[in-house]
């Protein structure tokens, strides 16, 4: 075998083909067939796929698959095996290129501009923002010979150290306070050709934001302004902008259709405030769109470059009237927040044995309490705290399931949660499969440790126990002990229904 020349020339780096080796690889009756295959692929095992002399992909079914439990050879075509075999081989580059097949679109000289002001809750694009950018793409790309460009307007809140809202990640409105200076990810995938970052004060400053948008209006004059019609973010700012520009905005927009009779070339359908009626009208300059107004961009990638300096507004934006002052977030009792709109839920199931400890943990972490059906049926929690198909469908950003195994009805209820944490003794339960982070341990011990850690942090930070009363800390310490001393609880709570 020493006489076989390798495929790649060592010195020049040019790919060199060895016809004899390829012939041996094709001829599976050749005594050195498998060796030739592995030589061609450059890996130790036999290769299953290679490029033939005419550019065709050749496959070797003998090199793939495994022997099943009944002694038959099985080939798994789900791609799992294939991908693993290929990972270290010479084909890796080709597979990687196939993964991102989105067309890259660059618009150098746009015929017009469509400005989008996403809400960017918590410094990220929301689904609503992506739909809105999809709508903007639709409007901008209508005429392929003169395409417009989509400009994403992002507010860069100068979040100071004393910013009261810096730690709060609620939706629209407080977004600016959390916006990272590095910018928002995924604007290129979502369909933005250009991005502009407008500096505004942190917190609720609609007047300053409006002034920034008006400065942009004077330098760029976009053909359309699109904002999400949701709450006090885009809904508030968009109406202010429309009134200032003297436009009658389209609110509750949920569909657009092309119409050459209309001045803008588009007709839109707008829901009335009650949602029972709608109005068909030409698309105005300012439009506030509902979620799912258009499909988000999936097939293309866009530049998302910064807007050029001569188009971007410079200097400070004059604010016409300063009648508002943001005094910061107000501490809200998490127990008073409805389960459906709670941001952070600590939910208990059958695995929780120490109910006072659970309530203490919810208080210490500042979480809203939830429960599985079993916990409610057993009378540990009130009915209005039940999460799931028969209770409340929740949309928390973080959902911590303590001792909940995850019945399908419960999992349906937490479908819209962003991050799920499971604390469970059974590693095989469905909740652990659903969770982003699962801790396989006794639930009681873990929540006791959570409280202990959180109390320690609060004590360190504020020089006291915060709003927790003094005796809680003492109880926490012996609760940790009790949690450790209950190994039998582990086996008992392993199987339970949520």
């Amino acid at each position, binding site marked *: 075998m020493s006489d076989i020349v390798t495929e790649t020339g060592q010195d020049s780096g040019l790919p060199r083909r060895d016809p004899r080796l390829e012939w041996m690889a094709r001829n599976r009756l050749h005594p050195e067939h498998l060796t030739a295959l592995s030589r061609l692929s450059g890996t130790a095992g036999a290769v299953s796929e290679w490029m033939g002399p005419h550019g065709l992909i050749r496959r070797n079914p003998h090199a793939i698959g495994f022997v099943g439990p009944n002694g038959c050879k099985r080939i798994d075509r789900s791609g799992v095996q294939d991908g693993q075999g290929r990972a270290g081989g010479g084909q890796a580059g080709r597979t990687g290129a196939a993964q991102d097949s989105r067309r890259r679109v660059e618009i150098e000289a746009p015929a017009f501009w469509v400005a989008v002001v996403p809400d960017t809750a918590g410094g990220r694009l929301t689904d609503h923002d992506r739909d809105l950018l999809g709508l903007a793409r639709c409007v901008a790309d209508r005429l392929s010979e003169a395409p417009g460009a989509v400009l994403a307007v992002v507010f860069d809140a100068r979040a100071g150290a004393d910013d009261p809202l810096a730690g709060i990640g609620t939706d629209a409105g407080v977004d600016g306070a959390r916006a990272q200076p590095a910018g928002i990810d995924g604007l290129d995938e979502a369909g933005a050709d250009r991005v502009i970052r407008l500096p505004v004060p942190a917190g*609720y400053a609609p007047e300053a934001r409006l002034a920034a948008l008006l400065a942009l209006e004077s330098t760029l004059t976009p053909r359309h302004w699109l904002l999400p019609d949701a709450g006090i973010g885009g809904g*508030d700012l968009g109406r202010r902008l429309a009134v*200032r520009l003297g436009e009658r905005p389209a609110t509750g927009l949920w569909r657009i259709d092309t119409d050459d009779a209309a001045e803008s070339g588009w007709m839109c359908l707008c829901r009335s*405030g009650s949602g029972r009626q709608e*109005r068909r009208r030409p698309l105005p300059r300012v439009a506030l769109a509902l979620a799912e107004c258009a499909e988000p961009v999936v097939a293309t990638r866009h530049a998302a470059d910064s807007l050029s300096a001569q188009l971007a507004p410079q200097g400070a934006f004059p604010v016409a009237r300063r009648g508002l*002052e943001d005094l910061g*977030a107000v501490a809200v009792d998490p127990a008073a927040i409805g389960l459906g709109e709670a941001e*952070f839920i600590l939910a208990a199931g059958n695995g929780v044995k120490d109910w006072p400890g659970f309530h203490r943990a919810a208080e210490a972490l500042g979480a809203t309490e939830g429960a599985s059906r079993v916990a409610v049926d057993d009378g540990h929690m009130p009915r209005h705290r039940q999460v799931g198909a028969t209770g409340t469908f929740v949309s928390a950003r*973080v959902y911590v399931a303590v001792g909940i195994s995850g019945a399908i009805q419960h999992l349906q209820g937490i479908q819209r949660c962003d*991050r799920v944490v499971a604390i469970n003794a059974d590693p095989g339960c469905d909740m652990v499969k659903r969770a982003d982070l699962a801790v396989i341990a006794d639930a009681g011990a873990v929540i006791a440790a959570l409280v202990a850690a959180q109390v320690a942090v609060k004590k360190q930070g504020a020089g006291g126990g915060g709003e927790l009363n003094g005796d809680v800390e003492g109880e926490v310490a012996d609760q940790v002990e009790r949690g450790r001393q209950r190994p039998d609880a582990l086996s008992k709570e392993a199987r339970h229904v949520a």
Partner: protein
Amino acid sequence: MSLERTRGPGDAGSRSAGARLEIGVLVSVGRHGVTERARRADLDARALELALAQRSQRGVGEVDIAACHVGASSDETDAALRDYLGMGLERLSLLEAREDVDALPVLLDHLRGNEAEGDKAAGPRLVLCGTRAEQGEGSGVLPFALAEALGWTMVSGVAAIEALEPDEGGWQATVLQALPRGQRRRLRVALPAVIAVDTAAPMPRQSAFGPARRGHIDRRPAGGEARVDEAVTEWPLTAAKVRSKRLKIVTATSARDRFKAAAAKAQGGTGQVLTDVTPEQGAEAILALLREEGVLR
């Protein structure tokens, strides 16, 4: 801390003589969600509830409530307006105008009316209203347009009025604004201002029959420019179409990908599982995630 600073002089000021405030409330005729019968609009009733709460808090002599409605007089409208009177109002003005007339110039004329008479401080310095109407277009633009035309401050999504106090040269309100996720934000608003009230505001009190009968509807012809709202005739409202449920879009390039997408089970599968850890280690990992998400206060 800044809150206490404002509250100090405010408390003193409210007791001083002549600190009298007029609150305007814009009320509309609502529609019941199921029966579609005329009733008081829920959000406007919440706005009136905030105003009534201020009056009972500060005393009847200190706060005047001037509620007004623009629209055509009819039995349906009167019945709905009497719902507001039943909440404890003595009188309510009905600015009679045709249904297709733009309400903005009428309201501007009404609110500026007192200023024109030379008594600049007499008119309402604070106007409360619901975020959007329950019938008609209900776009929610009117409060913004009103504030813009009057040059007043505009706040939307308000859940509570914490304080109303005279400041140097004017009045100041401290309000709570409803954020998503049940959160609240405190704002200081310089009056004059238009405040749009959100569904997070307290439930309106029940309308009582006796006060509703006794209350007076003050009818007067609408002033200002009676401009027909061209949108009403040009773009008529139709019954809403059902929005189709969005389908999951699969952009697969091969048959295998399409099959995988069709047969995929709803599961993450990418989560991190910590086994054989002490409770303290587990708690630390959870707290790190909570801190990363920013939900810990």
